[in-house]
């Protein structure tokens, strides 16, 4: 359970940093009025939707940390036989990076108000993301074709489970991307469109980060890395 604890430590650190800026040592019983007008102690200047997405991403991060924790615990048991990762996954990773880059370009374009480039970025991101999902399904087919079935070994089970979960999250993101695209083509208000595009980009970058982590995990590098860390510590 160490992975999830480390993750929670990061969350706790962030929460602690935020709380330390909230005057938790104030003595509210002595402070009447809009004392010194607590500007900066009210709400954050960030858009509410972004904070909402941030909290949601923390939950998603928690979910994948827990899968990782379970992965490491189950991996220690004797019947674990790692499966060879299809080389297709490298291509998929590249495609997902591309979609993240495309969305980042869309964000830059939206900030400059170049609606054509926003549309281009959104469309590229949509197609590359779909390509990623198709690529993941092909990787699954390749593995099942080679006899690495879901139930035949826990390593396989975890592979399908974690990649499937990640794919579902990407798929859910496509709904948001779709709505943003509809707005981009039907002339949504520029500031609203900018926010939607930024939210999409934030989600995509995070899921790309999650994918890189689980790719490292499934490829076995994460285990090697932790092994090295443990040796250094002992």
């Amino acid at each position, binding site marked *: 359970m160490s992975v999830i604890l480390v993750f929670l430590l990061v969350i706790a650190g962030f929460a602690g940093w935020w709380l330390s800026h909230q*005057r938790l040592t104030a003595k509210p019983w002595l402070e009447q009025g809009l004392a010194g007008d607590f500007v900066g*102690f009210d709400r954050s200047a960030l858009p509410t939707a972004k904070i909402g997405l941030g909290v949601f991403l923390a*939950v998603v991060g928690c979910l994948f940390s*827990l899968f990782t924790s379970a992965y490491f615990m189950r991996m220690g048991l004797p019947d674990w036989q790692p499966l060879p990762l299809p080389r297709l996954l490298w291509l998929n990773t590249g495609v997902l990076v591309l979609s993240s880059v495309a969305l980042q370009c869309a964000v830059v374009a939206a900030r400059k108000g170049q609606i054509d480039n926003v549309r281009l970025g959104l469309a590229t991101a949509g197609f590359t993301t779909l390509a990623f999902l198709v690529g993941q399904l092909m990787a699954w087919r390749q593995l099942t074709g080679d006899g690495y079935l879901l139930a035949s070994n*826990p390593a396989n*089970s975890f592979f399908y489970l974690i990649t499937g979960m990640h794919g579902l999250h990407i798929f859910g993101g496509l709904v948001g991307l779709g709505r943003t695209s509809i707005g981009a083509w039907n002339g949504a208000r520029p500031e609203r469109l900018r926010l939607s595009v930024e939210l999409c980009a934030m989600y995509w970058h995070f899921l790309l980060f999650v994918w890189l982590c689980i790719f490292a995990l499934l490829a076995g590098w994460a285990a090697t890395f932790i092994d090295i860390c443990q040796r250094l510590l002992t």
Partner: protein
Amino acid sequence: MVDVTPADAIPPAEVGEVELYHPHSWWTKYVFSQDAKVIAVQYSATATAIGLVALVLSWLMRLQLGFPGTFDFITPEAYYQFITMHGMIMVIYLLTALFLGGFGNYLIPLMVGARDMVFPYVNMLSYWVYLLAVLVLVSSFFAPGGPTGAGWTLYPPQAIMSGTPGGQDWGIILMLSSLILFIVGFTMGGLNYVVTVLQGRTRGMTLMRLPLTVWGIFTATVMALLAFPALFVACVMMLLDRVLGTSFFMPAIVEMGAQLQHNGGSPILFQHLFWFFGHPEVYIVALPAFGIVSDLISTHARKNIFGYRMMVWAILAIGALSFVVWAHHMYVSGMNPYFGFFFATTTLIIAVPTAIKVYNWVLTLWRGDIHLTLPMLFALAFIVTFVNGGLTGLFLGNVVVDVPLSDTMFVVAHFHMVMGVAPILVIFGAIYHWYPKVTGRMLDETLGKFHFWVTFVGAYLIFFPMHYLGLMGVPRRYAELTDMTIMTESARHLNSFISIMAFTVGFAQMVFLFNLIWSIRHGRGAGGNPWRATTLEWQTPQTPPAHGNFGKELPIVYRWAYDYSVPGAKEDFIPQNVPGDFAPSREPA
């Protein structure tokens, strides 16, 4: 003393008005409503309805335990199904949903001075997904093989084997699906509660001016958002084990002479995941109760809460600590003794902030102007009950004491006192307190007193003897104990007595329900602020609060939530949105 200039009549300029969704038809106003207050009532009604099912299940269990062999229809399988569904419904579908979905939805926007939750549409979805989860859960009663009988902890491997009711039928599948749906629905709601507290606060409502109720619900929601994924992961993996034959949790097993296809899985892994959710869950239920009880005591003792800052810090400390104590539920799983030592230590440390809270409640009462209203009675009963349950928690937190007691009725008594009876007493107190705001009418006092005394005394008569039974060694989880030597004559009589008390307390809840429904039309009119309370929900222009909560302009907050009996003030309470300085060192305003 901090020198503060009294700020009068500051124009509500910088408060950003939100675009509020306005319903257009009866359907969008009362059914598919995006108004947090309607959603709160929907959540509460659904939770109460499913809670009644759990109540009936507890009666059926007590019928069997109190009068074994008398009722033929309660087979051992049926008993396990009752026990499982009772536990699961109470912990998740009633307590969590009622505290966060019910009270959270109603109180957060009103108390922080917002017009609604920040994402009303997602909030509405949250309720409907929750309702779907409840329906899936209920459907398992009618599925072939009945609901699962795996115990509320659903430990594998037994949970998905043919020896357990529902293990190889639909029961366990529906249970796991329902939990997954619940978590999805809760996450939608939880995002709202957290972000509304962060971003929805009105001008002047700093974090340290929030009522403790909001602090409790806020912290509990953050914890729930981080803890429920563990249950989600456990449920998904067990569902795969059961449906697709993977071996996440299932070791190699020979069942009825046949080797199952599972191999090498780890049941302990499930226990870790389950309790990583399961222990924070205790505090997810307790923290809102802590917060609410602080406000009830302060309001009804006409005194500011003692040690507000310490109360906030204690809530945060408990929230953080509760993530590193989960394995104290697993002492009997054969863990490394050093692990046990670590978790026993953290478990005992968590008693420190908890004790601080108890002391502060008592010190708030000290020399207060205590009005023994119904909310106050329930709040007092909560303190006593929580201390009682907490003390047995200190017993069970120690490995050496826990190991012999773990499988006895002592544990049943402990967790019912601390996370069953105690939070439910707060729920009752809170309902008596806020019902006038929700409906505009008071609940009937006489019926309420009857409800209180039967529930409070009855709950003690049910659960105190269970400690004794547990110390005698009477095991839990057994459908039938008649022939065991441990079941002496007196133990059997005690069991019958407990059962009769359980029926009595259950009956009192029917009186309460009658009161709830009867008072909607016939209760005494309450007015806007019957308890003369300071928090913003009592300062709304209409009661019940209209759509948008606060008339044309949002209130501005000038003070904390606990200005009761301020020397020099005209009345014994100063609402949070009243400007002016009434500090003792100054001239009376």
